């Protein structure tokens, strides 16, 4: 750190308060608070663990929810005054104070930069550190299981470093499969009997995607487990760096492909905040309505698939009927059912069809009827209760420590919902409730999701009330949004704007931003770094199910294999978002 002085001259109240707290911390004078979109603390790797402990435990900080850790490579970053090539960026949230913070660990210039692991402070850091190790080659001394996570074990190099040539391919053979050390040990005994190691997946009907679980069994009970992911990794983040800001939108559709609209909205919100442009009310409300419908789809798929896993097939068909009807609405709006690509930076691709409101109202009638049917079939069914109630329990403390968000966290009794904690768009104007449950088991998660769908319908109903009947859906800033086609065809000036936008992309001012929304699975965050060119310099997704999947191997220990299947279903892990 160049200056050891705490800058308090031009800080926002939140950042100033944080700076005051840091002053009284063990790292006082060695950490610096800067005011970006959220208060940011800069620290060197030597003081990182001390700072982490302080941020978690200090009553004035209480950053208990670890959200994200990612690397940034400044090798080709234009215009930014950076002393070092690599930095690690950590995002935290304080549930009690309802505030986000960012920590930037500035790493020494080294081929293999190293910063101590904070897995012991926030267990949620486990997989995020492995990801930074994999993609950036950061070393985390003290990490219990530092292996590649998204790329396979025969991969050479670190894919997100700026000097890594993206065209390279690495062959993966069977002998490259990494078997955890503990799984090789077959001598381990449990009482008088020997234990057995089994593989569930990668291609298993219960994994709903390609996920590999290695479990050691004592009889039918799981005594140890490890999840291997990355089978669907396609390096979304590297692709984003190679494309213009708008061109990333089709890629975001493929993150959580069950509710594609939410990803797009989360992403473009980040870019719009960096540009500082406003979206017309109509555009914002259409986004809200379709996002809420997407959330319903997400929950329908999660519950439907989960119930299939435990043997209740009928619900799946009824829930998918909802999804089918919502797909029809999405297709009428944007021309595609699954990968919608409907949002654009600055608004929407095209205005909604004329019969949008009647179509939505029809859905508002059909969806609750089918949900009622599900509740009749499931809620008091003894088999469902036996399989879901009391299995896969996550306590409140565990849920926070493992960095869970969304329905998972709410089912454990924490009423954290981004739509309420930091209302974006029109969410502060709607009357709706956050459903929570106390038990933290699979049945609680099922109940929370069911209730959330009803609350989403409530939000949609109110949004339709205030939706302007006519008006623009996109900003009229032609530096950002393509001019109307009529103007492009007949007006030279508009054609020039059109040409500049298509060929060079949107010029987003240099800087960084973390924006987060409530997606189907929890807090979906996008951390974007721009250096003034037409595309992202760095784009990190904070996928909510990454933290959930990391917790899975801890949740299943002590339960049976069949409980693990039921638990995996309620996590709602979408491999597209998990592996990116």
């Amino acid at each position, binding site marked *: 750190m160049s200056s050891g002085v705490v800058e308090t001259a031009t800080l926002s109240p939140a950042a100033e308060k944080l700076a005051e707290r840091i002053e009284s911390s063990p790292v006082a004078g060695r950490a610096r608070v800067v005011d970006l979109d959220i208060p940011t603390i800069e620290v060197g790797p030597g003081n990182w663990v001390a700072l982490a402990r302080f941020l978690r435990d200090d009553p004035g900080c209480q950053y208990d929810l670890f959200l994200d850790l990612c690397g940034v490579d400044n*090798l*080709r970053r234009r215009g930014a005054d950076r002393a*070092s*090539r690599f930095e690690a960026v950590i995002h935290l949230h304080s549930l009690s104070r309802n505030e986000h913070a960012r920590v930037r660990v500035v790493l020494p*210039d080294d081929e293999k930069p190293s910063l101590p692991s904070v897995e012991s402070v926030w267990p949620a850091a486990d997989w995020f550190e492995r990801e930074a190790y994999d993609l950036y080659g950061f070393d985390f001394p003290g990490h219990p299981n530092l292996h590649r996570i998204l790329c396979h074990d025969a991969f050479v190099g670190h894919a997100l470093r*700026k000097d890594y040539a993206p065209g390279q391919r690495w062959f993966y053979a069977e002998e490259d499969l990494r078997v955890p050390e503990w799984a090789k040990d077959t001598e381990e005994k449990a009482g008088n009997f020997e234990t057995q190691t089994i593989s569930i997946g990668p291609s298993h009907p219960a994994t709903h995607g390609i996920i590999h679980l290695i479990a050691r069994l004592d009889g039918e009970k799981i005594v140890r487990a490890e999840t291997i992911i990355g089978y669907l990794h396609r390096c979304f983040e590297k692709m984003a760096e*190679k*494309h*213009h800001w*708008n061109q*990333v*939108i*089709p*890629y975001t559709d493929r993150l959580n492909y069950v509710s594609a609209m939410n990803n797009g909205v989360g992403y473009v919100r980040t870019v719009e905040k960096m540009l500082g442009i406003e979206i017309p009310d109509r555009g914002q409300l259409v986004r809200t309505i379709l996002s809420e419908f997407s959330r319903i789809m997400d929950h329908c798929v999660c519950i439907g698939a989960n119930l299939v896993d435990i043997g209740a097939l*009928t619900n799946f068909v009824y829930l998918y009927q909802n999804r*089918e*009807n919502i797909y029809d609405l999405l*297709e*009428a709006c944007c*021309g*595609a059912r699954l990968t919608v*690509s409907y949002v654009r930076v600055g608004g929407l*691709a*095209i205005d909604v*069809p004329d019969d949008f409101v009647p179509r939505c109202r029809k859905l508002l009638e059909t969806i609750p009827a089918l949900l009622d*049917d599900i509740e*009749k*079939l499931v809620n*008091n*069914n*003894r*088999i469902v209760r036996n399989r879901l*109630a009391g299995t896969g329990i996550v306590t409140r403390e565990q849920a926070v420590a493992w960095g869970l968000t969304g329905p998972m966290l709410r089912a454990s009794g924490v*009423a954290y919902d981004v739509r309420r904690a930091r*209302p974006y768009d029109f969410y*502060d104007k709607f009357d709706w*409730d*956050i*459903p*929570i*449950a*106390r*038990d933290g088991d699979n049945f*609680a998660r099922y*109940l929370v999701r*069911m*209730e959330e769908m009803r609350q989403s319908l409530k939000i949609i109903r109110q949004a339709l009330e205030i939706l302007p009947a006519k008006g623009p859906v996109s900003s009229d800033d032609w530096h950002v949004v393509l001019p109307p*086609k*009529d103007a492009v*065809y*007949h007006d030279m000036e508009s*054609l020039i704007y*059109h*040409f500049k936008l*298509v*060929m*060079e992309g949107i010029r987003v001012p240099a800087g960084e931003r973390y924006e987060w929304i409530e997606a189907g699975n929890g807090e979906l965050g996008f951390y974007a770094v721009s250096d*003034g*060119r*037409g595309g992202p310099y760095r784009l990190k997704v904070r996928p909510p199910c990454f933290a959930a999947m990391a917790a899975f191997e801890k949740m299943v220990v002590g339960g049976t294999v069949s409980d693990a299947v039921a638990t995996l279903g309620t996590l709602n892990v979408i491999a597209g978002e998990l592996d990116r």
Partner: protein
Amino acid sequence: MSGVIDVSGKYPEKLTFLQRLYIPEILRGMSVTIRHLIRNLANMKGMPTILYPEVRRNYSGRFRGKHILKTREDGTLKCVACYMCQQACPAECITIVAGEHPKIAYEKYPVVFDIDMMRCVFCGFCVDACPKDAIWMTRNYEMAFFTREDAVYSIDRLRESPEEIAKHGYGYRPYYPGDGTTPPADAALLPVVPGSGEREQLRENRVPLPDRDPGPGPLNAPSQAERPFSA
């Protein structure tokens, strides 16, 4: 804004004796499924399932299916090979090779216009990017191929044909009837006699443009300097 509701209180933790007997709950569940069955039998047309391929889903006029290249009145392609769709394509599935058209009014035309349907993600960005109203999409979503070469559609398969439109209908396009957009005027059909020297003359008379600041340059240009970092 409103409050928080605890859903775990909504259902009693313990099932009643009748519920634990399982049979009454089974009957209750059967009543739901049988109600669905009777409703479907009574209203076969309203059933949510579609008997594909005998029956096909009715898609909207915004459906993003196979592309078509629009033509002018004289049958030439409207495309002027400006490369904007190729640049806008996030999947990099469009390949264009431009040629000089014998008619000066048309200036350029695509000698090659290939879309690799295996790479295409059907996002419609090419339609948005086109300044000449030259590329639209159709509602045709059935494109199966046996070889990778088959998946690369060239001009002969992309050119708009009345039969294709009659069968599938237009899909995603830059403007829709009634939205007030006037398509670009057709370029004047100027005759150019080959070898008359008109084109050469035009080229000679062109005044070179002054140098200008090239700006930050495209993404990932090889000229981007790597920032030196001191160890």
